[in-house]
C-alpha cells in the first residue's frame, strides 16, 4: 500500500506519523509484558503501552476517516510495510535491558509532553482533542520514566554503567525529533502541526535536569557519550551536531522490520481475522 495513492492531502501523512510513533513505542513496551523485573513494574509498563496504543488508535481512526476510502485503523496498523511507517527512529529501537527501555521512554515522553501540550492548540479540532486526552497520560509516563532514569543513573555502578551504555545507543536518534519532515513544514504554516524545532529547548531543559539528578553526563556531538567528565557546559554548546534521521520519511533502521514481522504476523497470515 503506497502512501501517495490513498491520500490526496498532507494532513493524513502527519496524522499517520503521530499514530506510528505511538503504536511502535506501545508495541515495543508491550514486548515486556510477562518479562518485567517485578510484577508491579511489568504492569506499569503494560499500562504505558496501553496508553500509547490507545493514542495510536484514535490517530489511525482519524487518518482512516480523512482518507475516506476502504482504509481502517487495522489496515493502517497491520497492512503497511516498513517504508510506509512514518515513526521516528527512536521509538523503534529494540528494548535491550530495562535501562535502555526506560531511557527510550524518558527521552520520548519528554518530547511527547511538550508536543501534545502544543498540539492541544492545533487548529485541527480532532487533533487538539486527541492531544488533550493524551497529554494527561504522558504526564504520568514522564514522571514514571524520570524517576527510573534517576534511580538507575544514580544507583549502583552496574546500573549507572548500563544507563551510560543505553544513552550511547539512543542519543543519536533524539535529534530527529526536532527536524521537521516535509509534511510538518507545510502544515506548520496553517497552525495545524506543531513546530518541532521549537520543542528542542524545553526538551533539553527537562532532560538536562533529570540527567543532572541521575549523574548522567550530557552527551557530546555525534551521538556519543564522551565520558563522565563531559558535563554539559554552561552555554549548552555541547549538544549533538549530528542526528540520525529518515524515519519520518519511511527510511528506518533494521529494528522496525522485525517489530512489524511480529506485530503484523496474524493479520498477514489470516487477513481480516477476528477473535
Amino acid at each position, binding site marked *: 500500500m503506497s502512501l501517495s495513492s490513498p491520500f490526496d492531502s498532507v494532513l493524513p501523512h502527519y496524522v499517520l506519523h503521530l499514530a506510528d510513533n505511538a503504536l511502535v513505542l506501545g508495541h515495543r513496551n508491550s514486548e515486556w509484558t510477562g518479562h518485567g*523485573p*517485578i*510484577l*508491579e*513494574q511489568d*504492569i*506499569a509498563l503494560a*499500562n504505558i503501552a496501553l496508553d500509547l496504543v490507545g493514542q495510536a488508535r484514535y490517530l489511525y481512526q482519524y487518518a482512516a476517516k480523512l482518507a475516506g476510502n476502504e482504509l481502517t485503523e487495522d489496515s493502517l496498523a497491520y497492512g503497511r510495510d516498513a517504508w510506509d511507517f512514518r515513526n521516528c527512529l527512536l521509538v523503534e529501537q529494540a528494548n535491550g535491558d530495562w535501562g535502555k527501555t526506560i531511557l527510550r521512554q524518558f527521552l520520548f515522553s519528554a518530547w511527547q509532553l511538550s508536543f501534545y501540550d502544543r498540539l492541544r492548540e492545533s487548529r485541527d479540532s480532532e487533533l487538539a482533542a486527541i492531544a488533550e486526552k493524551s497529554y494527561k497520560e504522558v504526564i504520568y509516563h514522564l*514522571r*514514571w520514566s524520570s*524517576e527510573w532514569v534517576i*534511580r538507575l543513573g544514580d544507583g549502583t555502578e552496574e546500573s549507572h554503567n548500563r544507563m551510560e551504555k543505553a544513552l550511547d545507543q539512543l542519543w543519536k536518534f533524539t535529534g530527529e525529533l526536532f527536524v521537521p519532515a516535509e509534511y510538518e513544514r507545510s502544515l506548520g504554516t496553517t497552525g495545524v502541526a506543531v513546530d518541532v524545532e521549537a520543542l528542542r529547548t524545553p526538551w533539553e531543559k527537562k532532560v538536562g535536569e533529570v540527567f543532572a539528578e541521575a549523574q548522567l553526563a550530557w552527551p557530546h556531538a555525534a551521538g556519543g557519550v564522551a565520558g563522565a567528565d563531559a558535563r554539559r557546559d554552561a552555554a549548552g554548546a555541547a549538544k549533538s551536531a549530528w542526528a540520525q534521521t529518515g524515519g519520518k520519511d519511511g527510511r528506518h533502521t533494521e529494528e522496525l522490520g522485525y517489530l512489524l514481522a511480529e506485530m503484523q504476523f496474524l493479520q498477514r497470515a489470516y487477513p481480516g481475522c477476528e477473535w
Partner: protein
Amino acid sequence: MTEQQWPLWEVFIRSKQGLDHKHVGSIHAADAPMAIENARDVYTRRMEGVSIWVVESKYIHASNPDEAASLYDPANDKIYRHPTFYDLPDELKHM
C-alpha cells in the same frame, strides 16, 4: 528481583463515592513514591479510586488470632449493647 526483595507495602484506596480508604492489597516498592506509583498502576486500572494511601507492611500491628476467644467472645452475650431494646413510637419509620 532475586536476592534482595523490595519491602512490602499495604495499599488503601478511596473510591470516588467512598469516604474511607479501604484496604485493597499489597505491592512491593523501594520507597514511598514508588509505592504510590505501583499502587496506582496495579490497583486503579479500572477506575477503582481517586486517592491512595500506602504504608509499609512492617508498620502494621495485628491482633493475635490465638487470642480471638478472649478478645471477642465476651461480647457475645452482651446483646444489650445493641440499641434493640427500646420501644419506638410507630411514627418513627426508619430506625
